[in-house]
């Protein structure tokens, strides 16, 4: 409310600036006559100046004479053709100008401001930001402290292992790569460290498993053939090379060995579906069995109901990237592309503050064919 009050005050001030000279009436007509004679006045000033200079002995008498003659000549010329037109007062035009100020000015201002401005958004100066901001702040401070410590003790392998994933989460991938390399150097080889390094390298390359990254995963695979991260990324490399069958084979083998509660299980399944090598267990077997007996309309209604429940759940808890991806996919399957786009926008906003999740989300959306 205060904002609109401030806007109103400012508008009134602007209008007043235009109306004020208009309201002063014909008092200005003396001005006109006075300044139309401006040229003559300048020359008269110059003559007076010459006298002053002469009195102060700044110029010699002959030069003063010459100057006087010169100015006099110009003065005569100026006086000859200065036919001062009488000043007029044109009430109609003044009224028109007043109307322009009273109506035109606010209309232009509102007309330009409304599409551009965000009057409902308050200020967010950093000092007033809530704790979330401070926590990230302190996280970055911690990173700086650890970095300073490592500058003095570059051989501290444990320090590098702690720092690397944090850097990766902050989106500083190049530095994360360096940190993982140092961790490898000072802590020794291990499949996990090799595949972590590979992951950071491909993150730095915006998700592309480069030849360099692939070499790391292959080394990790050689150290431990069951390392899930190495296997997953080798599959991804195969997919990015266009060898979809190889990718599917690798991931299938990975799923076969995976423990049932592995947190990455879902990711691998999604990937498998993407390369066309598996089905998506989005609905549990019982639900599918139940839906088999339904007619087309009922089944659609059931699916819709589930989608709506998912949507409302995500509205309250927006941090679930997989949930968002499921929702977007469901909309796409139902042929409602607009809603899918809307949901992906909502999802981006919901996880905008978390770089890692945003990256996951963007990758997921990309595979669904919803770019940017």
């Amino acid at each position, binding site marked *: 409310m205060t*904002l609109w009050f401030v806007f109103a005050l400012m508008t009134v001030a*602007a209008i007043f*600036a*235009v109306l004020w000279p208009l309201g002063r009436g014909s008092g200005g007509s003396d001005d006109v006559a006075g300044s139309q004679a401006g040229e003559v006045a300048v020359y008269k000033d110059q003559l007076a100046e010459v006298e002053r200079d002469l009195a102060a002995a700044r110029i010699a008498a002959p*030069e003063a004479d*010459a100057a006087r003659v010169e100015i006099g000549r110009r003065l005569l010329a100026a006086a000859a053709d200065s036919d001062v037109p009488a000043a007029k007062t044109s009430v109609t*035009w003044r009224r028109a100008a007043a109307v322009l100020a009273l109506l035109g000015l606010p209309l232009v201002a509102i007309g330009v401001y409304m599409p*551009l401005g965000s009057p409902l*958004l308050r200020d967010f100066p950093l000092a007033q930001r809530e704790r979330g901001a401070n926590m990230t702040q302190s996280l970055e401070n911690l990173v700086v402290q650890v970095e300073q410590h490592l500058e003095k003790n570059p051989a501290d392998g444990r320090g590098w292992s702690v720092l690397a994933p944090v850097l990766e989460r902050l989106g500083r991938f190049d530095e994360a790569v360096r940190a993982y390399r140092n961790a490898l150097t000072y802590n020794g080889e291990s499949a996990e460290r090799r595949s972590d390094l590979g992951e950071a390298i491909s993150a730095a390359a915006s998700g592309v498993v480069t030849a360099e990254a692939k070499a790391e995963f292959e080394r990790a695979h050689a150290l431990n053939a069951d390392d899930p991260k190495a296997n997953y990324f080798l599959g991804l490399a195969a997919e990015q090379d266009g060898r979809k069958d190889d990718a599917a084979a690798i991931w299938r083998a990975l799923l076969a060995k995976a423990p049932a509660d592995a947190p990455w299980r879902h990711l691998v399944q999604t990937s498998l579906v993407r390369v066309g090598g598996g089905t998506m267990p989005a609905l549990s077997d019982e639900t599918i069995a139940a839906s088999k007996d339904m007619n087309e309309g009922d089944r659609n209604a059931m699916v819709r109901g589930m989608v709506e429940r998912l949507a409302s759940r995500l509205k309250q808890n927006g941090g679930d990237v997989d949930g968002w991806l499921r929702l977007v996919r469901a909309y796409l399957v139902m042929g409602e592309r607009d809603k899918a786009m809307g949901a992906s926008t909502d999802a981006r906003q919901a996880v905008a503050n978390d770089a890692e999740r945003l990256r996951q989300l963007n990758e997921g959306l990309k595979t669904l064919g919803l770019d940017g």
Partner: protein
Amino acid sequence: MIAESGHYALVLALALALIQSVVPLVGARLNDAALMNVARSAALAQLLFVGASFTALVMLHVTSDFSVANVYENSHSMKPLIYKITGVWGNHEGSMLLWVSILALFGGMVAAFGNNLPLSLRAHVLAVQAWIASAFYLFILVTSNPFLRILNPPIEGRDLNPVLQDIGLAVHPPMLYLGYVGFSISFSFAVAALMEGRIDAAWARWVRPWTLVAWIFLTLGIAMGSYWAYYELGWGGWWFWDPVENASLMPWLAGTALLHSALVMEKRNALKVWTILLSILTFSLSLLGTFLVRSGVITSVHAFATDPTRGVFILLILCLFIGGSLSLFAGRATALKQGGLFAPISREGALVLNNLLLTVACAVVLFGTLYPLAMEVLADFKMSVGAPFYNLTFAPLFALLLLAVPFGPLLAWKRGDLLGVTQRLLAAGVAGLIAVAIVWGWAHGGSTLAPLAIGLGIFVIAGAVTDLVERTGLVRLPFATVLQRARGLPRSAWGTAFAHAGLGVALIGIVCETTWNSEYVATMKQNDVAHVAGYELKLDGLFQRQGPNFREMIAEFNVSRNGEPVSVMTPSKRSFTTRGSSTTEAALLTRGASQLYVSLGDVTNEGAIAVRIYHKPLVLLIWWGPVLMAFGGMLSLSDRRLRVGAPKPARAKQRLQPAE
């Protein structure tokens, strides 16, 4: 609330500018004082609102309000306060806001101090100012709005380009803009004169000081920018003939010409039409500079975001104002009253020669700037026009100009005596020749032209001194009289002498730096010693340090000369994590006007570091020259006497040398 109020204030300024561009013109046509006076109050209110808008943006940057996209993209909460403030104009949107703020400032100044202007002239001038302002307000609001918001504000900003995190950003752009935009006043005066169809004495009295103000700021701004590039970019170069540098040099050349032709107009009522044309050209070149920097047609340190819509918009503004004003000129110039006549050998004649050389030099720079761009667009052929081109074209023109500079102030108005002036300049000429001889005998290596150029520099300085000696009667008259005459001398005469001497000083600096600068490039380890120009620099070691938003690697050099310790130099490399880029901070050691310059390269695997060391003799003269010029300009500006250039009566010359 601050963000939205600032945004709305800018919109109101646009609305006011629109009214200001129409109502006063109607008033002038009807000869209605009240309608014409709308221009004044509207211009002042515009200044108020743009000022508020700019202040709002500064506050948003200072409080790190990342809900404003401009702040998010160009600021960082850990940045030192000074860079939070300067960062406001370290980006495209903010610098445009500074641009229009300065435009409004100049408009407001005309409104506030223009009481002695004829009313209709003031109305016209302010209306033209308002056209320019409206175009740029629209440009800002539509294509480069600094007040756009982000719905979910990010927690940290993306930081300012590290190269710009320097005190230079606090000085260089505001000065340069004061120069560029200052020329809008003479442009507005010129267009107003064309629309009114007459130029009177008040016109001439007004245009010169405004041009002078703009010229002073532009001179300082260019010099500051050059010095900044010199110490920040780490190459020790101070002028690259980069298109953006040329974009600032061209208005300077045209503005210098304008300054001198305005002088003729003020004093002698001549060269009116030419002065009008120069006013239009000077501001057109300023606009061209704005276009080059912001449209993305060139890539350089200065090139802001490359957004084609902005380029098209500015191109439209450019065509509208340059095309419009030139067609107005073509249509109306013949209607203007011609001024007084003069002989070819006279002060006026000398100033015409000055104008001729300056405009040709300006045309050369314009050609060198636009030709490669045109080739790239039309023939898809990349080429660069650099120092060799300008050495062949620009340098001879300027040498000719400098040779003529000492003659100008000594010639009398209307009809001069070249032979007499040459006699009086004999001493200065001899001083120049002695300098040539000394430099020739003393210096080893370098171009054969260098001693000649230094002699030319000395001649220009000695010529300026001669002018003062002549006017005060030093040598001929008793000291007390001289002192009195020196005090009585108009400050503009002192200003002329200082500005002209500044040219000579800068020339000497340029020649010395380019001819006798010594360079040492090597990879150094700890305790290695480099020998450059008689100095020994020992690398003591490398250290790490944490700055507010960067990490810094410092190299410490112990500098000694003939075994005597001189100083410690600490060049460094800063890496900025947020932008993932680094800058080199060169270390400078000033000895007299010469400098020792150390900048760091990359660290090799063995812990050695690439180092560039330069010794630059008399390099500081390059910037002292422009400072001297600007000082001369200020002296001249402070001299607000009315000016009239009367010819010297023939008889008087034998009797007494008049002071003015």
